[in-house]
């Protein structure tokens, strides 16, 4: 079985400051890893994904994430956040070609 834990339900951060959103997962098989962003009243948009290869993955809007197999983590980072980054962020795992298992989300609020 797969599960995803996003330890921080809310993360406030000042504009232009760095941010890290934490994600840990558990799985009995190899998984693919994803981060999605959800803006108010919108669907989910893919930020980045890890399928294989380099453990440092770069995504859209200046975000990146690092896959750490030993710690079963896939934390999302951005060196300098903008007001427009205020949104809900979801970490997800996929055991193969099928469905996604999502965490409960982290609400990032960027403070001017």
């Amino acid at each position, binding site marked *: 079985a797969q599960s995803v834990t996003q330890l921080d339900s809310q993360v406030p951060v000042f504009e232009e400051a760095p941010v890290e959103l934490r994600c840990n997962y558990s799985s009995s098989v190899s998984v693919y890893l994803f981060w999605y962003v959800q803006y108010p009243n919108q*669907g989910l948009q893919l930020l980045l994904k890890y399928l294989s290869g380099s453990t440092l993955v770069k995504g859209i809007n200046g975000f990146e994430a690092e896959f750490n197999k030993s710690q079963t983590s896939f934390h999302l980072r951005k060196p300098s956040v903008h007001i427009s980054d205020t949104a809900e962020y979801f970490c997800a795992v996929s055991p193969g070609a099928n469905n996604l298992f999502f965490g*409960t989300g982290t609400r990032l609020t960027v403070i001017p």
Partner: protein
Amino acid sequence: EAGVAQSPRYKIIEKRQSVAFWCNPISGHATLYWYQQILGQGPKLLIQFQNNGVVDDSQLPKDRFSAERLKGVDSTLKIQPAKLEDSAVYLCASSPAHNEQFFGPGTRLTVL
């Protein structure tokens, strides 16, 4: 490229009433998913179609929920009768291949 379309965007009904949601995936995407996202939680898969066949419906409450994907293109999700706990956002996603899912804007259902 047009995205995943869903309608209606909002729906308010009373408990025990019926409701239906419609999804039109991105053209050419063989796989279609319906997710339920309860407030404060991550999306949870209800059903996955591959063309017009069901791949996974293990989380679909079949006593009240039904879904179909006639002709392997658009899909409808129905709830009959609705309960208070069905209040949620219903997200449709489609995928052209393994793992990358594209989400629609969702339908927000409120059951009174």
